[in-house]
Every structure is written in C-alpha cells, then in structure tokens.
C-alpha cells in the first residue's frame, strides 16, 4: 500500500529516537479519515449532562446519527438519551431556521423541564446565518434556565475545536452556583464520561480517600453541580484533549490548579490517586496512608485475578487506534501487564507532546500514526500480524474481516474499563476475543488441506 503523499509525515516507525510526526492537521480530502467533526467533539463532551436538553440545530442527519450512541449512563434523569433536531427543510435553508429553533425551545423546555439547554449549531446553520446566540439569550430570559449556544459547525476545524466549543459552553455554567460548605479537600473530575458507569468506580476511590467530588465533567453530569465547580480546590483532568481548555480557564479565572491523570491500567490509576493524595497532604494528614491502603488492597486483588489471563495472552501482539493519544499511552502499559506487546499505535487527535511520549514508551519498530484511515490501518495490522485490535465501531470490521480479535475502547463501550476493576474487565475483554477458537478457522491462520 502506498500512503498518500500528503499523509506520509503522519506515519513513523519508532526507533527510540523520537522522530517527529506531523499531527493536528486537517484531514486530507478523500482520505477517508476516521475522524468526525467539530460537532462530534462537542457532542461527546456535553452529552453525559443528563438533566439538560441537547438540541441539534440543523438538518436531520447530525442528530439522527448521534441518537443514544454513547455508553454514558446516568443515575437519574436521562434527557441526554433523546435526540432533538430542528430538522431543517428547504424553506428554512432559504428563510433561516431561527423561528423554528425558537419555537422548538419554547415547546421542549416546557415539556421536559430541563435544568439547562444546549443548542448545537451544525454546518448548515453556520452558513445560513442564524443568530443562535441571540435566540439562546432570549430563551434564557424567557424560560429562566441557561440556554447555551454551542458553536460546533462541523467545518470550523476538527473534533478538537469541538472540545473547545463544549468547554466554552460549560464555562457559561461554572461560577453561577453557590460554593458554600465545600470541603478544603475537594476536586472536580474532568474528562470522565461515565461510560458504562466508570465515573462511579472512580468516585468510590475518592470517597474512600476522603475527597469531596464537586462535579464530574461530564459523566453522570448535572447542571447544578457544574454551576458549583469553581468551589473545588483541584481539577483532575483525564482525556486531556477534551477538557484542558476548561481546566485552563478555571485556573486563570478562579485560581484552581489542575493535574493530568489517566484511570486506565494499574500504574496510571494508582499514580492518579497518589498524585491527588499528595496534593492534599497538608490539608488532610491521613490521606496518604488511606490512599496507600486502598491501592494496596486493590492491586492485591487484581494480581491474582490477572495471572490467569496473562498466561494465555503472553507474547501476543496488539494494535491500538483510538480518539486521543493520551489514552493510547495507558493502553500500552495496560497491555504490558497482560504480557502483550503493542506494535501499532495511533490516534485521531493526538498532539505533538502526546506523540513524543508515545514514541518514548513504544518499542522500537512500532508503527505510530496520526489521523489514519481504513486502508492504512488494515495494512499495518496485517504487516505486524497482530492478535488484537483496540479501537471503536469503525475499526471493528477491519479487525473481524481479517480475523483479528477486537476490544472496543471508545465511547460506545458497554463495559467499564477504567479503575482497578476496569483493568480486570479489560483483561477479560481482551482475553475473550484473543483466545477465541474462531480465529483458528480464519484464512490468516488456517489452511485447509487440499
């Protein structure tokens, strides 16, 4: 396979010397990128806010394709699982969609009594010139709830710009609630979306450590909690790509520092808890000890359970292609715990710093790729003869078609993979697929005697 000329610098083979990789670049036209759009980035981040209305302003597709596609769960209201579209038609394109949007907000806010409403502007809205912000302002006054525009026109950048737009929207809420009675040992969890209940696993650890969680951005999210977020003493940012913007804003505006963590895999999970404990050791003298105890117990339980999987998985090879490169780092480490080796790794939206770290961690010869496409990915996994592909729904058929095991590590997963408990689930998921006897029958592995 020939890699497209314009993409050549977005693929490197690690030689341990940190070669530079081009990233944060627009997708080449016609390259069949696995990326979606600005709107997608915004929708991912805001989606789990379960007591808000999420109204997609545009033609039907943008809303229809994102209806209930994420695995974010809520402990209460489930407004986020509905798909609202202004369903723009020909006349709206000509005369504008403002009236339609306004009427819709009016009706739906009365009907569902949400705590806030987000209005996502999609591509078409960006060119027909609707003043979404003005309508939101008008409705905020009329309905007495925050109605917030999300400037997520698909063509105005990449998924990352969508993260930024979502952070801007959240920033409209932060700082508007009362912060009385908040503990000096308190945090916001950022970049954790409660996929399959992962936020709950993480929150349980913080509870045991004696930390108050003010809000999670945005897993199992609630508008009232978000409004109080500025009362936290520390922001703990996972999935740095999506939430760095708001963490930085809150640092500037409210002086709240942030740290970057990951909850995937044993080291990274433990490291996250230790970092946070360390931060609060002045305020809470017992916190380090409690954290050590917690980590020790969790790891002890883990090790025994992992051993069985390790025996079967040792020496197997994996390819990783996920949204953010930061997660890929954790996955490489988690796979090592299972005795597996990563030979292809890539992401849709990694930045230069992420890729530098990836190269430092990856073994020599590993293919590292930014903003890849199906044709490339298929050729990489075949070349490296992998046993496992970690990715999302769009990568899954590539793996299966070629007779390769698969683990879904995207936003659609139905099994919690974060935290210590998540490490066991991860091992189970990987194991279930890699050791399946069906691979013994696929052409790659099985040749019928003539």
């Amino acid at each position, binding site marked *: 396979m020939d890699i497209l000329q314009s993409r050549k610098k977005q693929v490197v083979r690690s030689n341990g010397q940190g070669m530079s990789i081009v990233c944060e670049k627009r997708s*080449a036209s016609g390259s069949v990128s696995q990326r979606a759009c600005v709107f997608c980035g915004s929708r991912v981040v805001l989606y789990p806010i379960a007591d808000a209305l999420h109204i997609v302003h545009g033609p039907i597709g943008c809303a229809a394709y994102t209806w209930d596609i994420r695995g974010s769960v809520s402990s209460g209201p489930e407004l986020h699982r509905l798909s609202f579209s202004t369903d723009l038609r020909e006349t709206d394109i000509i005369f504008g969609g403002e009236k339609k949007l306004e009427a819709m907000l009016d009706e739906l806010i009365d009907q569902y009594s949400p705590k806030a409403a987000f209005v996502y502007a999609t591509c078409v809205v960006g060119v027909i010139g609707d003043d979404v912000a003005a309508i939101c302002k008008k409705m905020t006054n009329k309905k007495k709830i925050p109605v917030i525009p999300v400037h997520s026109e698909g*063509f105005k950048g990449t998924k990352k710009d969508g993260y930024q737009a979502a952070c801007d929207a959240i920033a409209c809420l932060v700082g508007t609630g009362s912060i009385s009675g908040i503990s000096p040992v308190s945090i916001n969890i950022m970049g954790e979306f409660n996929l399959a209940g992962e936020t709950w696993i993480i929150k349980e650890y913080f509870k045991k450590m004696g930390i108050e969680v003010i809000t999670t951005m945005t897993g199992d999210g609630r508008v009232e909690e978000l409004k109080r977020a500025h009362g936290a003493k520390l922001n703990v940012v996972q999935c740095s790509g999506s939430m760095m913007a708001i963490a930085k804003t809150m640092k500037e505006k409210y002086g709240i520092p942030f740290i970057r963590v990951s909850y995937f895999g044993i080291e990274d999970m433990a490291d996250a808890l230790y970092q946070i404990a360390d931060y609060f050791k002045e305020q809470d003298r017992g916190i380090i000890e409690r954290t050590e105890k917690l980590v020790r117990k969790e790891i002890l339980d883990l090790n025994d359970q992992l051993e069985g999987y390790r025996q079967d998985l040792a020496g197997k090879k994996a390819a990783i292609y996920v949204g953010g490169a930061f997660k890929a780092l954790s996955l490489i480490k988690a796979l090592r715990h299972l005795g597996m080796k990563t030979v292809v790794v890539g992401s849709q939206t990694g930045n230069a710093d992420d890729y530098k770290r990836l190269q430092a961690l990856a073994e020599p010869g590993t293919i590292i790729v930014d903003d890849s496409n199906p044709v490339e990915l298929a050729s990489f996994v075949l070349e490296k003869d992998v046993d496992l592909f970690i990715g999302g729904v769009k990568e899954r058929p590539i793996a299966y078609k070629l007779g390769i095991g698969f683990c879904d590590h995207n936003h659609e997963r139905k099994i919690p993979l974060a935290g210590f408990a998540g490490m066991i689930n991860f091992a189970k998921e990987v194991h279930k697929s890699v050791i399946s006897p069906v691979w013994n029958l696929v052409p790659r592995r099985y040749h019928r005697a003539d």
Partner: protein
Amino acid sequence: MQTNPCKLCAPLGASLVLRGIDGSMPFLHGSQGCATYIRRYMISHFREPLDIASSSFHEETAIFGGRQELLEGIHNVYKQYSPKLIGIVSTCLAETIGEDTQALISQMKANNELPEDVEVIFISAPSYAGSHSDGFRQATKALVEQLCIKGETKQQINILPAFLSTEDLRYLREVADSFNMPAVILPDYSSTLDGEIWDSYQILPKGGEKLESIASMGSSLATIELGSALDNSLSAGSALEERYFVPNYRMALPIGVKATDRFLDSIAKITKNPISTKYSRQRGRLIDSYADAHKYISGKKAAIFGDEDMVVGLAGFLSEIGITPVLCASGSMRSNFGEAVSEVVKDAKGPIVIKGNVDFIDIEEDIRMLKPDILIGNSKGYAMSRRLNIPLLRVGFPIHDRIGAQRILHIGYQGTQQLFDQIVNIILERSQKDSSVGYTYI
C-alpha cells in the same frame, strides 16, 4: 422539529447504492463529519468495512466553495482505491452554499483534470429535501441517467430494489436465475456488504453490479421497480421508460402471497418463462402455514414503522393474514406514502392510522393509544418496546442491537414464511408467558 427521528439523511441512502456497484466509491461533498457518521451508522448494521470518502470542508471551503477539495479528493480516492466509479454525493452544506457540483465536475472533465479510467458521476442529495430512502432512489436514478446508453434490445430484465437486506438482494438474483433471465440489479450490495471473511484486505470489497450491465439497462426487456410509495420524480424505472422505452413495472415489495404473486407473475409475463415449481411449492407451504396458525393471530393488532416501502409491504402482508396494522408510520417525507398504504390494507379489519413524517415520540404516543400486540420495525423501536412492554420484531434498517441484520429475508414466499413464523411465535410466546397454566401444547 423531530425528537428521536424515524429517518436518516439522504447521503446515507446514496452511499449505500454506490456500495452496490462493482468497484465504486461513494464520496460525500461536504464536511468530514457527515461521512464518518454515516459510515459508523451503516457499519453498526452491516458489520462490514464501509469506506466513504469526504471532501472535508473547512472554513474557507464553506465560503469560497470546494472545487480544490473536490479535485484533490477525487485524486486521493483514485490513488488509494483505484475505483472504477466515484459517486460524488452533495451534502446539505455543499447545496446550501450553492455549490454547482455538477458544473464543477463537467468542467474538470472538460479540462482533463480527472483521472482517465474512472467514471465520475454526480448525485444531488440534500437531506433537507428528502430522507435516506429518497437518497437511495436519487442515487439509483442518477446512475441510470448518467451511465445508460441505448443499444440493441437484450434478453435481460432490470430489477430496482428498495432499501433491502443483502439476503433480499441474493433472493432477487436467484429469482431471475430461476427464470433463466439475466438481471441487472441496481444496486446489488449483497456481497460488498455481506462478504466472506478475508485473507487480505480488500480495498474495495468484491461484488456489486457491473458498470457495463448498468450501461445496458436501457436495452432490457422491462424493469421491475420495487416500492409503491414512489413517485416519478424519484423513479429510475420511469426514467428508463421515458428515455429508452423500457416498460416499468412498479409494485409494492413482494411480502405476502399476493404481493409475491404479483412480482413473480410480472417476471413470468416479461420473460415468457414459467414460474419455477420451487416457488409454487414455497407458496403452497406458506398458505398451508397460514391455515395452521390463523387462529392464533386472528384479530391481533400490529404497529409498523420504518422506511415507507417496507411499511407498505408489511401492511399488505399483515392485512392478508388477519392482523390489523393499526399504525403504519414512517419518517418519510413522500406525499404518496398514505395512498400506497391505503392501497394494500383494504382487507384489514378496523381503523388504521397512517402517518408519514413522524418521529418516535409521535409513534410512541399513537402506540400507547392503539395498544397493539406487536411492534414491527427497525431496532430504534427498542426503547419504546421496552417502556411499553410490547414485543418488537426487528426488520429493515437499521438493526443495531442484533446480529444478522444482513441475513434477514423479508421478501418472496420464503421471506414471508420466516416473518410469519416469527410473528406467530412472538404472539404465542406472549400468551404462553401470560397464562397462569403454562400450557406445553399449543
């Protein structure tokens, strides 16, 4: 305004059609997101690799137009995929900025800017003007209009399916074979979207209708066009009739005895060949099973929802077995949907609610009132089926929460038989479960 839509956008349907042509690659002229979302949506149904290119509009493109992106994109697709055909489908964005994509392509062709050995055609499919099933028809029509050439009459027929499963498409091919009659099936994604396991990566999956065959559709004996909720403006069959005088037989999907009779009789008439005994036996067995099971379902009520043509087909079938399709609903924006349903439900007992242009909130509201015994439609009805505790039989597109959507046979006596058995058994299971006795003979 829509909440939980019961339709998708036009470029999805157009992309599906393009995947049903040998060596063809869909290319959405617009922003990256549309292509990626559409891929993801279809992959979850077909569980196959499904590449769709995009011209990846950005800010300047949205202001100044996408000529450069289009040209670069076509060349990139050509390099990576070596396709025989690239179908450029306009999205909402391209149409809204007033891009004259057709003119751009013609100009590129005239200037020799495009690779020589690839057909580039244009399909206009703004989704603010139509749904995915309209996009499907628009693409079919555009292909016919742009690829057909008049030749000597050929001993072959054209079959224009609706948005059907891959198993349905295999069935259509088999029927044509049984009449010893070559058929041009447009589109035919039966292998491209339900292929075998691979030993090496197929950049463009094997299969699909051949370009030469499509070119010859103007020379066929006749066209069978499936889908009665279709007007001439969306009809490739009508286009073939007008331009090349190929008679068009438009009919409802062959679901049920009567509709399948009509389908097979038409082919028999066109080809002047008899219907295979294989089918007459299937027909006999089907009616025999109707007799065996009629009491269990007599007077039961069903709600059907989904693509207009599927709803019409199912409504006719249910009416013929004594189940009243109390609700026939579709997100369809077509004006003749209601008429097409009315046409096939004449035998049904009791009032029937027919609604086009609805979303799942409307549908659920009606279902609450009408209290059907069974829901029949795509998997997006699952949430309401769960809330209302009414069983759902999954048919059509999309089916995102079960395996084997490609292999559901909906049409012909055989497909009807499978649907029939499932419907009866769902109803039996319910009454068995609800009974205090738990009878083991029914």
